[in-house]
Each structure stands twice: as structure tokens, then as C-alpha cells.
């Protein structure tokens, strides 16, 4: 029922990563994740320039019911955060793979993406 696009990579913690091919990537949370969380009312974002190890918590997404940590899929540096989420956190619910993206990052090692789940493996997980 939840959408899992074929061209993205995934984590077990329900983040997605979309490599641009130039060593950068977009990061967000999956349709399954936003559906489970319910109405998202606040996203706590890191500052551009911040560096995170694979699996490190880079922010928090708050629904009406609870706060949940966001985890960096692979080692990366934050280039840009989606500033639209400040006034419209509901974009994460509405378009999780589009306008609801959370970070633009520079990958420390472009090959690390290979360690992430592909769409078929993520579908198995959910």
C-alpha cells in the first residue's frame, strides 16, 4: 500500500536516499514512515556544513503523538536543508519523495550507497 519508488535507496529506519550522480544526494523519510507517524508538525533540522557518520541521528521529526529521530543513511555532509519544512512540515506527509525531502548532502564515499537497501529489499522489510 505504501509507495516504494524503484530508483531510491532505503534504510531499515525508513529513510530514503536519492543519489544525484555527482557525489550529492537527497535524503527524506519514506511513505511508510510518514504514514506510521501521522500528522507531522515539526522537523528539527541540522545546520548546513554539519557532518554525520552513517547511522548517526541528524534531526527529529515530531508528529502530534511523538518525536522520532532521523538517521543519516551513509556518512555525509549537509549541503542544504529543506527550508520549506519550517512553515510546512506537512509536506513530509503529502509528498515524502518530492517536496517533502529533508536534506541535500555530499556523500563522503559515493560507493557507500551500495550498502543501502534497494526498493525490493525495502518492500520486504515493510
Amino acid at each position, binding site marked *: 500500500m505504501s509507495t516504494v519508488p524503484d530508483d531510491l535507496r532505503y534504510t531499515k529506519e525508513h529513510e530514503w536516499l536519492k543519489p544525484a550522480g555527482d557525489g550529492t544526494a537527497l535524503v527524506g523519510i519514506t511513505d511508510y514512515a510518514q504514514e506510521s507517524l*501521522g500528522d507531522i508538525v515539526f522537523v528539527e533540522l541540522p545546520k548546513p556544513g554539519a557532518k554525520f557518520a552513517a547511522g548517526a541521528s541528524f534531526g527529529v521529526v515530531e508528529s*502530534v*503523538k*511523538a*518525536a522520532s529521530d532521523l538517521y543519516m543513511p551513509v556518512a555525509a555532509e549537509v549541503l542544504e536543508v529543506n527550508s520549506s519544512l519550517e512553515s510546512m512540515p506537512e509536506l513530509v506527509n503529502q509528498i515524502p519523495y518530492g517536496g517533502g525531502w529533508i536534506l541535500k548532502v555530499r556523500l563522503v564515499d559515493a560507493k557507500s550507497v551500495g550498502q543501502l537497501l534497494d526498493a525490493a529489499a525495502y518492500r520486504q522489510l515493510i
Partner: protein
Amino acid sequence: MTDALSRTPLYEWHLRHGARMVPFAGWEMPVQYTGILEEHRATRTAAGLFDVSHMGEALVSGPQAVEFLDQVATNRLADLAVGRARYTLLCAPDGGVVDDIIVYRTGPQAFLLCLNAGNTPGDVAWLQSQAAKFDCVFRDASADYAQLALQGPHAVEIAMRLAPATVRLTDVPRFSFVEIVLSGTSILASRTGYTGEDGFEFYLPPDQASAFADALLKAGADLGLKPCGLGARDSLRLEAGLPLYGHEISREISPLQAGLGWAVKLDKPGGFIGRDVLAAEAAAQPARRVVFFILDDRRMARADMVISANGKPAGKVLSGTLSPVLNQPIGSALVERGALDSGAMLTVDIRGAAIPLRLAKPPLHKPA
């Protein structure tokens, strides 16, 4: 605990209406249908329909029914008129809260009690043991009732559409009830609720709950009635400043600390269980108090986060969520009296940031 979850008579109805089901107090309950924010706003601006069949019910009758209830309840019940309902706490001998309940007087010697779902087994054991000392009969009747709450500014109008022309539901006062036939179903309709809005709570036979819920939804469709889950029920009650057992009141948080002294009649003839401890606490002033607050921030305070006064720990958060009406974080906290009396600036530690608490008097969604 591997016990299977209980299901209300509306389980299939919830699935049919697209509910997301979650475990709550031993029950499989709808947390939301379309979304907590939308359901919350529907209840504040139009009307919401809630399945609260997980709540427990008990019946008390007999010559000493009222003496028994006045012994276990903190509020006074002897003067409760037939057809009226009253909120009360049940306390343990040490003054801790066993449960908060509504007592309905259905006859001179007959009462219906509405109990919290998670507390029902404990309440039944406790009340049974106390009832044995009186000439009365106590019975757990939870399986005999479904319960639906219809809440919001249009709730009474919607209920009226199902009532015979001779019954004027608008004339039923707050905390009163009538036993009537609505949409062919025999119902106890009580002008009470847990949202801070006008409306009714309906007690009805379980096998008719699904058809009655459908009839209500149909009757209220043009007025914006929506099915609402436990998520909205919780954010509505917190905005309204209504206590939730296990959060604002518990075995550890007394009614006086919770600001519910109005429901504790220390001078009641014959006293009541827990009275002496509560009287001593009242005389000495409670050492800590439940307060409600608004945050001028986007981050939300959540249960168990630490409250500080001038940087020193002085309490903890009991409940926290977003107020969908204010679009700001709101919550309740248990704070030491010294910190409150000193006027010190209170903060809540949210992931390492000290966010100032703005104390506010409920209803939080209606700024003073």
C-alpha cells in the same frame, strides 16, 4: 504480557472507516481515521464521533448503595439527584488515586459507574471488596455496554435529528442524562464529554453500536461530523485541561496536587477512604502541583521531560502535544510548590535546549 487485545463492538466499523488501529490499555483502538489534526479541528468547529466502548461500566444497587459509594468516592454522592451525573475520584487509603470516574444516579437506590478502560479490572476488585461491607450489590457490567461520544458545537443538533419530536435533547442540562430511544435503540444519553465541547455520551447495547454509529454519521454528514480516534481525544482533553489517569492523576499524584480539590469533600459526613491523608495534605499545602503550559517554540514537550526552575530540577512533564487550535506546543507538568511560589522562570529540557514554560489556565485553546 501475551494477552490478546480486546476489541470493541465497533472494531469492524473502524476498519470500514479506514482507522489505524493501535493497542491502548489492553484494547485494539482507532488512533486516527484521516489524521489527528483534522479530527481535532472537526470536533472543535463541527462535531466528532468517538468509540469509547473500551471504558468500563459497573452497576451498584441496594439500600446502602449510596453509603457504599460515598465511602469510596471523594465527591459527595448522597445529594446526587436521579438523572444526574457527577465526577469523582476513587482514592486508596494513602490518598493516591485509584481512578477517576463518572457516577450516574439511575434510581433512588441504583447507580451506573463509568470507569477508565485500563483501570477497570483493578477498580472492580477494589470496589467489590468495599461493597461487601454494605447492603448493596456491585456488578461489573462492562460487557453490557457500548459507549459512543458525540462531541462538538453541532453535536446536540445531530443527536436531535435521531430523537423523537417529543424529546428535547437541548433541554438536558450538563451532567444530566435521559434514557431514550434514538434511531430505534434504547440509549442512556448523558450530556457529558471529555473534549471541552458540548455533546453527549451514549451508553447502548453492544449489538446495536455499529448501526447507531452509522445512523449518527449519516445524520451529521452535512454538518461536518467526522469519526475521531484516540489521538484527537487526547489532544482535545489536554487543550481543555481535563486530567488523564496515569498522567495528571495516578497512585503517586493526589487529587489535591492535580487541582481537583473541588471534587474532594473533606467535610463529608462519615468521611471516605483516603480522607485523613488528603486532609493532612490540604492543611500543609500540597508539596507539588499540576500546572498547564504553552510553549512559544516549535519543539514539543513530551511526558517525563525535566522541568527546571532557575536551572535546578523542579518537576517533570506529564502530558505534551501540539495544540491544533493554537498551532503551538501545550502540556501539563508536575512542579514543586517552592518553585511555583518563588515565581522562578520554569523551563523544560527538550533535547538539551531549555525552553521557557508559559503557564496558562485551561482551556488552553481559548486564550484569556
